[in-house]
């Protein structure tokens, strides 16, 4: 049985959004704990999110 | 993916690159460089002003400290001077006392000496006077005694008796 690629794309999107959601949530926690480091945390958060997003897109287009 | 490659328009890519590179160069020369240098200059100016203010404050504090130090020194000096003056006064007073005492003693001694001399002279005088009185009395006595021959003889005899020939 062949799984349609759209299902794979959906799975990728679910995975990527879970990952980005986790990054965002953890970053919020970190900022709440150390508001003075919010700039650094934001930068790190964006980079990590962007990397996951990149993988997500790459897989999405491969699909 | 395939669709993307098909969609890719080389002409658009070409124009985009051209426009963008041109924009980077043009803006870099005419906009970003002057903006950034102006901003840097302004920031440098603010930093300099702040530095100057901090330096002035520092100097002020230093001045205050040195003032304090000077005051302290002056106070100390005054204390020292007062102390010295007191010591000097004490010394002076002691000296004066001593001198006065010495002088007094000397005067006393002199007075005593004078008194002693006077006394001596007076005694001498008295002695002389007494002697002269005695002589006078003796003379008178002798005169009256020796006016009688017998008595004279008597005397001689006594005297002779007294004389012992050794």
């Amino acid at each position, binding site marked *: 049985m062949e799984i349609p690629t759209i299902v794979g794309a959906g799975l990728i999107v679910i995975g990527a959004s879970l990952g980005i959601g986790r990054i965002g949530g953890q970053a919020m926690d970190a900022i709440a704990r150390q508001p003075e480091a919010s700039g650094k945390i934001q930068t790190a958060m964006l980079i990590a999110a962007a990397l996951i997003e990149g993988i997500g897109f790459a897989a999405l287009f491969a699909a | 993916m395939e669709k993307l490659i098909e969609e890719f328009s080389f002409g658009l890519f070409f124009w985009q690159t051209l426009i*963008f590179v041109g924009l980077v160069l043009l803006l870099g020369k005419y906009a970003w460089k002057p903006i950034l240098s102006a901003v840097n200059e302004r920031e440098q100016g603010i930093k300099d002003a702040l530095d100057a203010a901090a330096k002035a404050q520092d100097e002020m504090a230093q001045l205050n400290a040195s003032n304090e130090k000077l005051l302290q020194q002056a106070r100390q000096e005054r204390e020292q001077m007062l102390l010295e003056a007191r010591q000097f006064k004490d010394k002076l007073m002691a000296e004066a006392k001593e001198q006065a005492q010495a002088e007094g003693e000397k005067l006393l001694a002199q007075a005593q000496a004078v008194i002693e001399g006077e006394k001596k002279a007076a005694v001498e005088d008295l002695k002389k006077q007494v002697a002269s009185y005695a002589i006078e009395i003796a003379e008178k006595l002798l005169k009256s005694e020796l006016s009688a021959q017998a008595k004279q003889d008597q005397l001689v005899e006594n005297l002779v008796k007294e004389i012992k020939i050794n």
Partner: protein
Amino acid sequence: MKYQRIIFKVALALTMMVTAGVAAAESPKENHTGGADLKTEIKEYIQHHLQDSYDFSLYSYTDEQGKHVYVGAPLPVILWDNGLQVFSSAALHHGETVAESNGNFYALAHGKIYKTDAQGTLSYDDHHHITNPKPLDFSMTKSVVAMLLVGALMFFLFRGLAKSYAAHGGVPQGFARLFEPIVLYIRDDIAIPNIGHKHYGKYMSYLLTIFFFVWFLNLMGLTPLGVNVTGNIAVTFGLSLLTFLVTNLTANKNYWGHIFWMPGVPLPMKILLAPIELLGVVIKPFSLMIRLWANMSAGHIVLMSLIGLMFIFHNWIGSSLSFVLSFVLSILELLVAALQAYIFTMLSSLYFGFANEEAHH
């Protein structure tokens, strides 16, 4: 502020629920009133909107005779096909007629120009792909015009800002002053932390230009002009190619050392890591390209679909709700426009930072 947020959230949730409900309720009705036809039309319209076009059309309508009328300006078409072929896109009539230039014939199909014969016949292969030859196309398309407009706007804006510094003794005046904090933000919070104090200077022009270029183009895509420039793969490819070139051309020895001969790991790992790292060099700008393109395209698709929904619903409740939703989404897209420009700049500067990292082992 807090109340506003709560109200906003509640409104959004309500809108979504009601829209979904109405959509479910309405869908059977649409099926027998020719809604499917409208849907394909909207789909085609969105598809068309996402693509570049050879003329700057503001809107189009169908007149009483059933003829398409386009309002806008034609743009020059520049082709390289046995010499330079230049003609106005008006000659193509939006794909309705065949244009002729120096004895060559060109037809517009699916937003691309193909070389044809005088009748404009197009031949297809088994997969419905057009097999006609494509001339090298350097046309001044809608996107090129948009980029030129943004370029001119940026030049006048920032030239004005630069001049106002000189004129007012270091304190800018006027409208361009709004952008000074952004310039400072890019310098202090993007360039310096990522690249370092020593090297950031030489990248500032590039970073500032790319930020404002992408931002303004993103914003331009949200205007009624609807030019989807940053949602075009050729444009994002060009931008990320430049980041790739700048990164690798200014890279120092340490950077290449980390790619080909990772210090501090055993020999087999070094051999294993080299191809991975080398792949990473390409993947980094590739992800930049895909990210910007996908975000902008997706934003446009969703926004256009919501606007299209208004016509599909064709009733007071559904249409007004999808209007509200598309309005809210437009505001979100404003944020995305700035965010994507920021991320592009941020990641570019991060890569420049990698290229300039000093050895510290």
